[in-house]
């Protein structure tokens, strides 16, 4: 049975179609979940795609985290089921406290939209379990607030528990420790700034995102 993946749509989300299309091409049964939906019945995994939820007013993710769907996402995650936040979705997960740290304005104060090289630095997450440790991937980034920041204790914890799943090879935004993506201790909640769905076809210039998306679907099947 195909993995049933919910793609959450907030007002201002703009990457839901890309994410859904890429996941469907990998064999997922994708459905959209509106931000008012208080439950995630019948889903095996949830993706929070990129965009500008609620216009990024106040801070990216600051308003979205209070959406009805986010309580359901927190329950879903606490049950060990896969939750992935891409770009704005990563910001929402941090604001919601489902991942540590925060995403701050890029060091250069410029909006960055470019292919970026990242290295897989941990394979213990649902998004990287099918990748090779040290694997280099070229995946686009598209953000203004993508600099991952956290306090020293959190950073020590992320390193010690092998929770940094992706690192930039040439840090574009000032993220601490070159962090491009992290996971929680259980490995089922992942946030990343690069957009794997935009590297999902040769027509888009790279297929390097596929190993991440297929990892997610494999992780679903491994659970069932």
């Amino acid at each position, binding site marked *: 049975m195909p993995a049933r993946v919910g793609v959450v749509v907030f007002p201002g989300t703009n990457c839901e179609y890309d994410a859904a299309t890429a996941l469907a091409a990998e064999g997922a049964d994708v459905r959209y979940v509106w931000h008012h939906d208080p439950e995630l019945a019948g889903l095996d995994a949830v993706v929070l795609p990129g965009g500008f939820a609620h216009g990024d007013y106040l801070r990216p993710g*600051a308003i979205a985290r209070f959406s009805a769907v986010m309580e359901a996402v927190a329950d879903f995650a606490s049950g060990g089921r896969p939750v992935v936040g891409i770009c704005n979705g990563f910001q929402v997960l941090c604001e919601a406290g489902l991942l540590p740290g*925060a995403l701050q304005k890029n060091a250069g104060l410029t909006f960055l939209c470019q292919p970026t090289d990242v290295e897989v630095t941990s394979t213990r997450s649902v998004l990287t379990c099918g990748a090779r440790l040290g694997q280099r991937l070229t995946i686009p980034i598209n953000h203004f607030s993508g600099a991952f*920041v956290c306090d020293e204790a959190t950073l020590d914890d992320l390193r010690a528990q092998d929770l940094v799943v992706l690192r930039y090879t040439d840090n574009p935004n*000032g993220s601490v420790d070159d962090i491009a993506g992290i996971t929680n201790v259980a490995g089922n909640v992942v946030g990343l700034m690069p957009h794997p769905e935009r590297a999902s076809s040769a027509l888009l210039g790279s297929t390097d995102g596929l190993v991440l998306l297929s990892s997610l679907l494999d992780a679903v099947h491994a659970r069932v």
Partner: protein
Amino acid sequence: MRFDARVEVRLRDGIADPEGATIERALPALGFHGVHGVRAGKSFRLSVDADSADAARTLAQSLADRLLANPVIERATVELVER
């Protein structure tokens, strides 16, 4: 009673502030010299119905900590202001 409050949200010490740094670097070009430590932040004005100034301040601080600031990188201070 109704109290007017001003909430200021600033980045915590030690958190890089590229906006403040950029503003600071621009100042000499405009002829402003000897200005240091520029930190950018946000300011909010709001009115609160409460029984006392303390209660108004507590409510404003609570909403500031929960929504207006992200405690991971920011801190919020509340001041009641004259109407």
